[in-house]
């Protein structure tokens, strides 16, 4: 039968907690979530953990295993050494509720702020015609199981509570990209909207999100970069640039950027004047980490040299010099504090 293995699990709630040690039986073929269930059944009936399908389809059991954001149900015990201690902590980017359960409402708020699909006018149900090759681009993003590992990993918001207001995160960039590439979506300003209101400019394509995606969606290459490139194209188009210099703002032919349905939710003023900027007015300005535009060459294209990495998925979110697993004694978990004294003031 099984062997006893050593586990360390963070237990506690918003008022604090600690990593506790457990010795648990592990059998052949088991995954980390099985071990958590065994803990619940035998030692800690009230250990809080989300899960549903146990097959990597629902995205509920997101956690950090030996420091790496992962799905508990898809992390097989056989990927660890026999005598390796496995440390399980909650997602760090979201406030902890209890044990391994975090408050992911940030993501649901961002989902509500992302303009919905706009059906084409005059096309009756049943009359939608699209080619397979055209729907496949969006379908890649619709594979998303909303585990929010990308949101958790993204360093723009990981440990930067103050950026959460302005930044929607990779999950919602692929949503915007999905709608942008939808053959029949009636809105034409998905990219501009993402730049102006979702904080696309904060992303500096380090590909951390792609690396942790359990569905292997190429978030950066297939969604974020194409969205940025075309926004950039427009911004650096010499004619548009010249036009901006010689026409008055109200003569400029900018696409409408604020949706009719969510205009009130968007950042107030900002929309009436020219180019989408990283910081729209109404967005709380933060000094902790400036929004960065991607590096752009003279021809208006982005320098893609940084994509030529030795392994797919790009650099580790933790830096290339970080080896996994982390030494056990280095692993800690501190719930993100709701009040970040440095950055709370609203400009």
């Amino acid at each position: 039968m099984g062997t006893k293995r050593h586990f360390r699990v963070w237990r506690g709630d918003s008022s604090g907690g600690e990593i506790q040690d457990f010795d648990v039986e592990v059998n052949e073929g088991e995954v980390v979530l099985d071990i958590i269930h065994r803990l619940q059944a035998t030692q800690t009936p009230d250990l809080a953990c989300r899960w549903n399908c146990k097959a990597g389809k629902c995205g509920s059991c997101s956690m950090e295993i030996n420091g790496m954001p992962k799905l508990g149900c898809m992390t097989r015990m056989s990927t660890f050494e026999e005598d390796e201690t496995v440390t399980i902590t909650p997602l760090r980017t979201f406030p902890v509720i209890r044990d391994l359960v975090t408050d992911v409402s940030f993501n649901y708020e961002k989902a509500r702020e992302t303009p919905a699909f706009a059906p084409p006018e005059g096309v009756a149900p049943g009359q939608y015609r699209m080619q397979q090759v055209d729907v496949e681009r969006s379908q890649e993003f619709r594979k998303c199981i909303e585990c929010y590992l990308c949101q958790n990993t993204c360093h723009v918001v990981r440990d930067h509570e103050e950026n959460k207001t302005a930044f929607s995160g990779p999950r919602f960039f692929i949503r915007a990209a999905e709608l942008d590439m939808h053959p029949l979506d009636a809105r034409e300003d998905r990219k501009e909207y993402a730049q102006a209101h979702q904080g696309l400019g904060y992303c500096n394509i380090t590909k951390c999100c792609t690396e942790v995606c359990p569905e292997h969606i190429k978030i950066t290459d297939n969604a974020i970069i194409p969205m940025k490139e075309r926004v950039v194209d427009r911004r650096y188009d010499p004619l548009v640039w010249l036009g901006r210099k010689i026409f008055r703002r109200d003569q400029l032919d900018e696409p409408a950027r604020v949706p009719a349905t969510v205009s009130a939710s968007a950042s107030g003023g900002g929309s009436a004047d020219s180019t989408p900027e990283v910081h729209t007015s109404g967005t709380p300005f933060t000094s902790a980490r400036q929004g960065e535009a991607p590096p752009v060459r003279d021809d208006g294209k982005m320098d893609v040299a940084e994509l030529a990495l030795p392994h797919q998925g790009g650099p580790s979110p933790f830096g290339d010099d970080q080896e996994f697993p982390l030494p056990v004694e280095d692993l800690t978990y501190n719930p993100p504090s709701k009040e970040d004294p440095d950055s709370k003031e609203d400009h």
Partner: protein
Amino acid sequence: MTTRIERHHYDVVVIGAGGAGLRAAIEARLAGKRTAIISKSLFGKAHTVMAEGGAAAAMGNVNSRDNWMVHFRDTMRGGKFLNNFRMAELHAKEAPERIWELETYGALFDRTKDGKISQRNFGGHEYPRLAHVGDRTGLELIRTLQQKIVSLQQEDFAETGSYDSKIRVFAETTITELMLDGDRVAGAFGYYRETGEFLLLEAPAVVLATGGVGRSYKVTSNSWEYTGDGHALALRAGATLINMEFLQFHPTGMVWPPSVKGILVTESVRGDGGVLRNSEGKRFMFNYVPDVFRKQYADTEEEADRWYTDPDNNRRPPELLPRDEVARAINSEVKEGRGTKAGGVYLDVSTRMPAETITKRLPSMYHQFKELADVDITKEPMEVGPTCHYVMGGVEVDPDSAAAFGKVTGLFAAGEVSGGMHGSNRLGGNSLSDLLVFGKRAGEHAAAYVDALAKRPRVATSDVESAVDVALAPLNRQSGENPYTLQQDLQAVMGDLVGIIRRAGELTDAAKRLQELKQRVANVGATGGRKYNPGWHLALDLRNMLVVSECTAKAALEREESRGGHTREDFPAMSPDWRKVNLVCSVDKSGDVHLERKPLPKMREELITLFDRTELSKYLTDGEMVEFDALPGAGKTEAK
């Protein structure tokens, strides 16, 4: 302990945030009703995501000979004629509209060459009929409905300044009791999982869309949520359940490694060309084609293989028989010693199509086996065996309005929690379309019911107080029995004694053991506090699992025949007399389950004459055949 109870007022409360619940909520909100959606998990995590194959709708995009009448016939055949014919009729007629509607919400189905929604073959469906997105159709459906709700909330925000003003999602919230005013629904009582705080939703109409009961079984494809909550809530509110003896064991669940035992392997594997072999390498399904299906299924491997490319001139491979037949066949092979070491059979696509086709058509299966079992399905066969998947039985409803029968009004049910639509066995692909068709109907009729009410029912304070007491009881028994042990014991009873193959002796034994478990569940305890405490949540769910299991065990003992998802070793034949009977369950004040026989509604003339005489004669009694022959339209339908 002081109890704080949050109170809310709604017009319609939808319990369950899977496909049926979300579709019902959309419809209620479109009818102008203030709507609450109760989700036991996070919003968008519902069990619907596990549906892989597709949604059946006779759009005729791939084979233009398909239409609602063919779909209706397939559904009735699949359910062995025990289906509520009206539900099967509405379902077949309305499914295409419901699918097309999803495209206007933003769904992106796979396409045919001319840009229409592509449709795939599936067990029991005569033509390619399942709208699909690779093998993650359920995810597409739930995401689409979720995003439609968000889009309605955005409209409400633009109008009122609040996203939640007309439709609100209560995530991670469980309802433990329905509140009644006499025999009218007055609201629902439950708790937030996160905080353990209680809430009371006062509403004159409640739509149950809580899914199934599979968690009472050891080997199941169902998640922790599937504890029969809606079934139990309905019973306790005075509604009735039908067909509870019929459980679908999906023929192909994973069997190895042990920790993933039960997780689903989609039927599309077989629809796209996968074949079943025993440990001797034989395609055994040819030995298991029952007489009623002989005309539609191939009897040689050559013909079966030709069918994939030329379905019009060949009969289908027997791997695509309805699920109950395939599950029983696998069960017999394993029992007779021709199974794999882990107790399954082989399902092979690796020798049937090129690796790129497999990874393209079955991406999540490839992924699932690679990551969970370290098996590359493009190179080696999968090991599969039956797993508890779906309950055909459920709340007895009016087919047109989805309103629950029994003593209660204002209660509606849609999706897996309702009964009748699928008869004794559900065809794959019919559940996704079922939840859209009847989800919409439930939402629409719940809204109409609210409009017609002269006076809103009131929730009695004493009912709320007793609901609080029941909910807190396990926490006040910290030294009570461990809920996880109780759940395992219940799963053992149901899996071993009320499983795929049933016998009178074992069922009697099961009934006795369930009574013992009932005593123990009354003493279940939960350690820890109210904040996100899974032990406490399970302790509360156990009560529901138990009463539903009791219905299943009792009905299974009563029905002395084998049909669809109910196989009695001691009564192996299908009985035309039993076809005329539904078993109806109710509970009394003390919580005991009562069983009653009720005649099946009689199919309308224009529907029954869609079948040919030879086929009907396999299901109907001699008396019914005499009546059939007297019909003017009888026998004029072309034999299928």
